[in-house]
């Protein structure tokens, strides 16, 4: 670059000659140089600004275009970045304790119609009515020829039906994929499983939601994609459940009962191995709930969990166990059983003649109302209520079913002396068979509280202690004697040492005043084997009557006990329990003389 000198010699000399100030020339030159410099830098800045502007315009332009394309395009599922397993998105299966399927899904199709695309609506309606006999042809024709643009024809159709509909060849009949909840075992364990139905429905999919039982209780868990389809494992054993239901149904039929319920529960883990309520239903085709009348007449009603009944003498063991725990009595203490006991207008008496004084064991074995009431009066109402609360008999059970809170025990509004006496033998306090199973499990398992559960558990529950271990052992011993020489003599099952207590309670009149003469709720609460209790079995029959004798017999000893015994006989081997084998009569040498 050629730089113009600030003091050009020629001009300086000339200026000196003319007497001008040479520094003015220098200043002038300096000014010119600065001006040129400023011009250059301005031009540079201008071009930079232009470039920057262009870059900004480009950047914002790109963002704008991208935004408008995003806004205008159809949303798409982010498949690449999605976390978790995109394959298993369906509702999880429910399996039993051995992994056998209780509920699963099946891919099927729904049939819908778009009448405006139909060419021959009349023919389509006629042929559809031929394929699905339950559809009304006239109704279909009205729908197809009316102003509707969309009609659901069937929620679920089988592959064969789908092919037949295809063969009609109408362009207005369309299929949407559906996932169907299938209960392959039919009515087995229906009350536990509940059932499922469709929630929000679209053409391309529909959500399956649980409507009752465990399906409803664990709806969120079963639908949670984070589980990746891991099945929900229950404590039920399908084989045991099927055998128990078979025996119960047979017993119910033979004894002309209106309903029946049974529970088999592991007393250490609290697992429900089987829970049956009859009459039952098919969860694949769940009947509608009753809109009028008594809900307990519906097959949907779970007698084992929702049905609260006065369970009669099965409660006696609680009063005796508590008295033993408090040290008031021991099994050999003599108890005054002379009746009747009078409370104002109410009188408490025994069903048959008994000795005026009996041991505490015999009070249980012979099932004396008067004796138990006397023991309960010694304990007192407040402590009795506390004890029953510790056994869980005053609150709804914690079982994992939607219906559990509706099985709330009915307690007397005022817990007076007469209530203390009647509750000790199971009248005046209504609870569900499941409550009874829970309370019996607590009493016989060594005395720690157990909460029933429908989920598989590996370890025993260690709940708060309710009674001492020795009290528990004595209670089991008393219950064993009820079977060996008391009211439950038909409950003996060879090899399994059944122990238990019968309970026969008259049904209360529906209008609330008094009791029926000829309708009973019979219960057998049993535990086996007595030498090392493992399972509690509760059998309850509603209005059972044994009519082989001269007059109908309605006591538990003749109804619930044989059913429970048969159930134990069938179920115990399935639970992997070996019977105690009686030694065979050995061929022995007999001394004889001639």
């Amino acid at each position, binding site marked *: 670059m050629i730089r113009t000198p600030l003091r050009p010699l020629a001009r300086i000399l000339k200026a000196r000659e003319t007497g001008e100030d040479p520094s003015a020339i220098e200043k002038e030159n300096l000014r010119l140089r600065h001006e040129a410099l400023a011009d250059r830098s301005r031009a540079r800045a201008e071009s930079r600004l232009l470039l920057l502007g262009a870059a900004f315009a480009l950047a914002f332009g790109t963002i704008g275009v991208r935004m408008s394309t995003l806004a205008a395009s159809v949303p798409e599922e982010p*498949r*690449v970045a999605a976390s978790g397993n*995109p*394959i*298993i998105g*369906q509702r999880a299966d429910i399996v039993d304790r051995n992994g*056998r*399927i209780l509920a*699963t*899904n*099946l*891919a099927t199709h729904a049939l819908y119609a778009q009448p405006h695309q139909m060419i021959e609506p009349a023919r389509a309606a006629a042929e559809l009515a031929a394929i699905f006999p339950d559809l009304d042809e006239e109704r279909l024709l009205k729908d197809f020829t009316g102003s509707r643009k969309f009609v659901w024809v069937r929620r679920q159709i089988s592959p064969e039906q789908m092919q037949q509909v295809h063969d009609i060849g109408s362009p207005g009949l369309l299929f949407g994929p559906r996932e169907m909840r*299938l209960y*392959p*075992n*039919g009515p*087995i364990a229906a009350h536990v499983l509940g059932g499922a139905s469709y929630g929000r429905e679209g053409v391309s999919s529909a959500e399956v939601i649980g409507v009752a039982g465990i399906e409803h209780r664990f709806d969120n868990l079963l639908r949670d994609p984070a589980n990746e389809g891991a099945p929900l494992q229950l404590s039920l054993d*399908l*084989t045991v459940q*099927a*055998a128990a239901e*078979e025996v119960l149904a047979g017993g119910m039929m033979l004894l002309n009962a209106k309903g029946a319920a049974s529970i088999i529960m592991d007393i250490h883990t609290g697992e429900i191995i089987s829970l049956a309520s009859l009459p039952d239903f098919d969860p694949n085709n769940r009947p509608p709930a009753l809109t009028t009348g008594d809900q307990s007449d519906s097959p949907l009603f779970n007698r084992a969990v929702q049905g609260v009944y006065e369970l009669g003498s099965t409660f006696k063991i609680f009063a005796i166990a508590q008295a033993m725990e408090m040290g008031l009595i021991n099994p050999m203490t003599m108890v005054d059983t002379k009746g009747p006991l009078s409370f104002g207008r109410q009188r408490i008496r025994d069903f048959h003649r008994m000795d005026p004084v009996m041991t505490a064991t015999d009070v249980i074995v012979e099932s004396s109302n008067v004796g138990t009431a006397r023991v309960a009066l010694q304990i007192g109402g407040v402590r009795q209520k506390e004890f029953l609360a510790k056994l869980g008999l005053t609150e709804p059970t914690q079982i994992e079913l939607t219906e559990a809170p509706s099985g709330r025990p009915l307690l007397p509004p005022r817990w007076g002396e007469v209530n203390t006496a009647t509750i000790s033998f199971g009248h005046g306090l209504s609870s569900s068979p499941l409550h009874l199973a829970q309370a019996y499990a607590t009493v016989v398992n060594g005395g720690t509280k157990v909460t029933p559960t429908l989920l598989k558990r590996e370890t025993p529950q260690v709940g708060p202690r309710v009674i001492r271990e020795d009290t528990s052992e004595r209670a089991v011993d008393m219950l064993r004697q009820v079977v060996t020489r008391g009211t439950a003599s038909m409950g003996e*099952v*060879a*090899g*399994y040492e059944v122990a238990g207590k019968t309970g026969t309670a008259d049904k209360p009149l529906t209008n609330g005043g008094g009791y029926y003469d000829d309708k009973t709720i019979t219960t057998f609460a049993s535990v086996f084997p007595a030498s090392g209790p493992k399972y509690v079995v509760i059998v309850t029959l509603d209005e059972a009557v044994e009519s082989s004798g001269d007059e109908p017999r309605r006591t538990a000893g003749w109804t619930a006990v044989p059913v429970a015994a048969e159930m134990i*006989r*069938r179920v*115990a*081997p*399935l639970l992997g329990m*070996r*019977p105690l*084998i009686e*030694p*065979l009569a050995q061929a022995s040498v007999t001394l004889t003389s001639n």
Partner: protein
Amino acid sequence: MMRFVMYVAAAVAVMGLGFWAYQENYRTQTAIKDVRLLHAQIGDAHERLGMLRAEWAYLNRPDRLVDLAELNFDRLGLLPLSPDSFGDPRYIVYPIPDILPITDPIDINSIGPSDEEDPL
């Protein structure tokens, strides 16, 4: 001169990277498509598997097994498991060995009473 070489190198690098990015983009899209296809196939396989499991469970439902056991009782003789099905190994009789051949014959004094005549 140096600068020119650098410009050319940069330009070549940009073109090269552009080509690489173009290829990578298409490779990624192919991979995504493959994965989608595989997912669909696995999904179908799961569906088939679920169907088979459901059928298996349906065919093995306790009601049907009971019916089958009853239908085929003549051939199979299946009964529900009961306490009688258990035994104690102590009470199993040991097999009785066959009687050894008698090599040492015994003289028989009498062949016993005959039917015709009464000994008394």
